[in-house]
């Protein structure tokens, strides 16, 4: 078991996005369960903005002002609590175009922020994410080839977003603790569910054979299970997931994880390995 010192040591570099990919993934998965690291991370944005302020300011060309303002004010503004339509992923179109935020980035952003901000900020995040989703639908198509860079961006955005989130009353978010059964007997999980979405993380699920994946389900009262996406476990048996849910679902009564073929199934086909209500 890694000592915590190793994680303490990488917090500053993580805040500056200087970690290598595998270091970063291991740290982010640790961050889900570590409030000490979440708190430590909040000590660093001042350094990041300080370093930014240390660059020499430079006057941009005079015509940039009107171009910038024109483009900016043409875009919709996000407002907390604005009602939105159910999400559909933006179509990704490869080819030369200005790099834009993609649908996947929004999800990665949701996952990243929840990893760092915890339950109270999560409720605010869901409201914000849905407002942002409506923006994304109006923007140009995503740039598929830049996906990896965009995921890194979303993580940096998340670090910034944590600092600008206000802790709000999380009245409509419920926590569901999941227990393992069968092949998942050693596993535990936790889900935070609201009418807008679900965030889930787990530890101890076994790695799966090729061609199989885990799938998360939310079960509304009196209705069939609704898929909340598929996920894999990392080398330490942990995993995390954040998904928006379709609007209009009845109150979620239970959350479960099953093993499915790669790509997921329309409905659960195996007995849940992890479940809670």
């Amino acid at each position, binding site marked *: 078991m890694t000592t915590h010192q190793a994680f303490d040591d990488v917090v500053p570099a993580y805040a500056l996005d200087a970690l290598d990919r595998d270091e970063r993934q291991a740290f982010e998965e640790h961050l889900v369960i570590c409030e000490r690291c979440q708190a430590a991370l909040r000590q660093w944005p001042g350094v*990041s903005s300080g*370093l930014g*302020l240390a660059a*020499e*300011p430079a006057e941009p060309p005079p015509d940039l002002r009107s171009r910038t*303002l024109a*483009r900016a004010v043409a875009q919709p503004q996000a407002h907390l609590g604005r009602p939105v339509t159910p999400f559909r992923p933006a179509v990704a179109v490869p080819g030369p175009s200005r790099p834009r935020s993609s649908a996947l980035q929004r999800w990665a952003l949701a996952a990243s922020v929840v990893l760092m901000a915890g339950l109270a900020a999560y409720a605010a995040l869901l409201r914000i994410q849905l407002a942002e989703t409506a923006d994304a639908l109006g923007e140009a198509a995503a740039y598929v080839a830049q996906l990896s860079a965009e995921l890194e*961006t979303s993580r940096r955005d998340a670090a910034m*977003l944590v600092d600008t989130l*206000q802790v709000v009353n999380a009245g409509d978010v419920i926590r569901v603790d999941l227990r393992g059964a069968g092949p998942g007997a050693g596993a535990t999980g936790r889900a935070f569910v609201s009418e807008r979405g679900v965030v889930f993380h787990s530890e101890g699920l076994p790695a799966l054979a090729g061609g199989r994946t885990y799938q998360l389900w939310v079960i509304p009262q009196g209705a069939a299970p609704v898929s909340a996406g598929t996920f894999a476990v990392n080398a330490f048996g942990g995993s995390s997931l954040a998904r928006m849910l379709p609007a209009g679902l009845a109150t979620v009564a239970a959350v479960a994880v099953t093993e499915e073929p790669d790509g997921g199934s329309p409905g659960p086909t195996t007995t849940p390995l992890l479940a809670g209500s």
Partner: protein
Amino acid sequence: MQDDAALVRAIASGSSDALGALYDRHAALVFGLARRITGRQEDAEEVVQDVFAQVWRQAARYQDGRATVAGWVVMLARTRAIDRLRARMARPDLAAPVAPDDAPALVAREPDPEVVTMSAQDGHRVRRVLAALPDAQRSLVELAYYGGLTHTEIAGQTGIPLGTVKTRLRTALIALREALGQTLEAVP
């Protein structure tokens, strides 16, 4: 004269004049940082547009007291600039199209000297703190922050062993934070 936070609130209410005023205060900061990171005028101009578009879209989410507006804007700028830098390294053939210019020109205004000076003063302080770091440490901070490099990339570029890079960067960042904590408004 409105302070930055008041301007952001006005922007959140849809005031394009307030966005123009914020541009007048902070565009030079964004442009300078973006040009330093990307090394290209055209990319820096795109970053300026990206940042102020994002400020316009997300002004409602800015929470007074959690970060200064200048700090927020600077962080947006760095993020966007690193994006462009990495995208260009991956796709050198990528040419960002010029943004359409289809809105009436807004009247240019003089930046408020007090507010501009505040950012400039903070910048001076940080530069002094950076200059006080040993060269070996400062160069790593600059490679990580302005160059957007990771541990391994820094090791590859400098020839310094990976373990040394990690330790030295961490030491430098902690020293920086200690020094900055005494000079800049703290981010809670």
